[in-house]
């Protein structure tokens, strides 16, 4: 079991992600914008963050970069649009560990999360 932080501004997508993560037995916390994500990381100390790139205000890149700059060492998975190679490259550049394109396949998403949780520190 791990702690997962979900950061997406679409409530219905959040509901689906929460379901999928809880189904794997993880503890889940969800937030809807970048500032809330930064606050939640400090308090909730997640093992993995599912981070949407298109967020209102502070966007996903900035959140990712700030988290890494603040010394967050756990996993970050970006949720991004398909066919946006530049987004993916930039995401890796600011410190993400993996990405999943929207609309995501639920099994693939779960597999990637589980693999990352097994892999790292």
């Amino acid at each position: 079991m791990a702690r997962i932080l979900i950061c997406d501004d679409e409530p219905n997508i959040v509901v689906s992600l929460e379901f999928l993560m809880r189904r794997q037995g993880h503890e889940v916390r969800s937030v809807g914008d970048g500032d809330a994500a930064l606050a939640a990381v400090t308090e909730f100390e997640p093992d993995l963050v599912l981070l949407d790139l298109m967020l209102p205000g502070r966007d996903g890149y900035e959140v990712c970069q700030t988290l890494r700059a603040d010394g967050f060492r756990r996993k970050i998975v970006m949720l991004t649009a398909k066919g946006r190679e530049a987004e993916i490259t930039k995401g890796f550049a600011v410190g993400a560990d993996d990405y999943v394109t929207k609309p995501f396949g639920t099994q693939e998403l779960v597999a990637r999360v589980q693999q990352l949780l097994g892999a790292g520190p």
Partner: protein
Amino acid sequence: MVPAWVVVVVSLAYLGLLFGIAHRGDQRAAAGRSLIASGGVYALSLAVYATSWTYYGSVGRAATRGLEFLTIYLGPALAMGCSAIVLQKLIRVSKRYRITSLSDFAAARYGNSRLLGGLVALIAVVGTVPYIALQLKAVSSTFRLVSGGAVSTTDVPAYADTALYVALVLALFAILFGTAHLDATERHEGVVAAIAFESVVKLVAFLAAGLYVTFGLFGGLTDLFEAAAATPALATAVAIDGYGNWFWLIVLSAFAVLLLPRQFQIAVVENVDERHVRTASWLFPLYLLVINIFVLPIALAGLLTLGPAVSPDTYVLALQQHSALALLVFVGGLSAATGMVIVETIALSTMVSNSLVMPLLLRRPRWGGPGLADRGDLGRLVLRIRRVTILVVLLLGFGFFRITGDALGLVDMGLVSFAAVAQFAPALLGGLWWKGATRNGALAGLTAGIVLWAYTLLMPELARTGWVPESIVRDGPFGVALLRPQELFGLTGMGAVGAGVFWSLLVNVALFVGVSLAGRRTPAEAGNAALFVDIDRRTPGPGTRFYRGSVPVARLRDLLARFVGAEAAAALVTEHTARRGVPLPDEALADPELVRQVETALTGAVGPAAARALVASVADEEPLGMAEVVELVGEAQHLRELDRLKDEFVATVTHELRTPLTAIRAFTEILRDNPDLPTEERARYLEIMATETERLTRMVNQVLDLARLESGQASWQVTDVDLRSVVEEAASATAQLFTDKEVALDVEVDGPGPLAHVDRDGVMQVLLNLLSNAVKVTPPSGRVRVAVRADDGTARIDVSDDGPGVPPSDRELIFDRFRRGAAGGTGLGLAISRRIVEQFGGTLHVSDCGGDGRGATFTVGLPVPARRR
């Protein structure tokens, strides 16, 4: 004079203060309250132009060469005063195409040529090294002077050389300042704030030094000049030796103020507001004037009291007899040097990493393709490259300083650098106005120019240090006198620098123009050339610039009818006539505005080039001039630009569609893979799927609506409509939304029933969109107000909300079909609404509610029936 440790502590404290200012500047920038958003700060930061060269070297130059030192300030003063146009165009182009360095600029202008970008970066580094050496030399020699040590360094081993430690400390600070984090815009507001501060420090310190020398050591200017006049040996200091040199020095410095890497960085990349250029165009020359006021008095005083035995480059400091003043003057010089080194190395590090190292790394197979995306630490890699570059550039500067030692004056070293960056002028400035310039022309000119620079300007300086046999400079290579570097092909009379600059720029320009004319442009080059040169004409939408002919209204309307239908064509003309308020019979000649509207409507149907050709075919146009023909050819590029906008539109729409699709797909798979879910949970997920499907449907309809509106196929029935009934109907249709979110809706209608001359369904659609947006952004238990009133000639509907408001910069953007709504999720609704009301000659715009930035008011302006006008 002052104990060395005191000087070190004061210097480090000063650098610490700078760092504090930069940090504060970055914080303020992040908080949206920029420290540097003023023309004054911009002008002060431009004064990074005044380095140790100005601070110490001008006096040295004046003491040996007279008034010639002024050229270095006349050039920039002329350049900034007269050609703000050049700078404005550079800024506009760079902002529009996100250019962040000189090398980026060169590469982008010439069809994204990596080779050219790399060459520019390389020349910038090589050309700037002597200039950095100059700063190291100034700081280290004044450090020894102020702390009472020996001034000469030639016999000290490298590791014991003060300059090495100066270089290392400056490298450390440049790294801290410029490469703390990666920023896509390459802008460093904090650094700019610190640089502006430094400009104040060096000005104050230099004026203090000048005042002390003039009024403390002497009895004022008159006394000083009389003493000098009484000493015949000092005639040189006020002499003018040959205007040939003057001309070239002014030209060089005029280029340098734009093309030195640090100047480009500050003037173009760090510019936050184009209007600041206007302030800078007088304030920056004024700064240069003020900082030069005391150059001549100090030079004369130095010659009178210290004599030529003391290096004139150190007069400013050597004349100070109070240790506190000496320390202040030293700090002033330090600020002149650090400002230059920090900005210059930051600019160079951007160029080296973006144009040299990254392209090379990306070419290696190990890095290419998807492998690149797998690298998690690319950002860190870039920062590391930049840090190493800063260190290497400073060490190169130190190396150059060691090689040249005391053989060169500060100004000689600086001029070599000026001449190197002047080689950029033909390709960069020429390329900004001349579309015919090609990549090969730029490459040929730049290469030849820099080779001649090395031969005529760099080599002679190296020869003075003994690194190159002096005989080559004296007698020419192999004794061929014609090839003597400083008098190439027997050119004399312009001075050595003048001749070198003349030959290198002449060959540079000749090859740049010649090769460009002889060769052919690739499509990429031609496209980018037009985008750069025509930056000011590339505002969205085709203008009226071609139309010079005369065409009857009826012919224009018939032409339009063939593409958009008779009804829509007639509506457009009627609407235009109504707006003009003067009847326009069929046989009357169409005014340019009507022609433009028809052309715009046609553009939606057949694209701009064809629309242009169609209008021209019915209009009796006067023969087109050369310029217009060139423009017509340029339409192909405009088309490509339009394609790009369409791509962006597709990206926006697909993004909007993707969101509901993501939820639908996720829940479909969840229901498929989890047949054992409890009933309520299943019901909840199915409900979400239904909602999202509905949302998807709505979006698809919106896209279709927009397409119909844009192609002019929407059919409207324009009648006199009672706005009260429309507003009330829209309010009751959205009542559920308001109840659900507990938002109150106030409707206030002025008078019995304001009438508007519109299509009822169209206005209804607009109101529904505005109301559903308003409820979406208003927090629960907030309030949305709708006010309807009619005054002279227009009916107005205001829809105000309690939401976060729309920042002024986004107030046009949100109506643009190519952009994603700033509030997110508004999708295409606003773009459609605006197009609908425009069909009836109405308007739609947004403002803030109370002027306090909170809340938004969307105002629909509609035409009223004719009899009420």
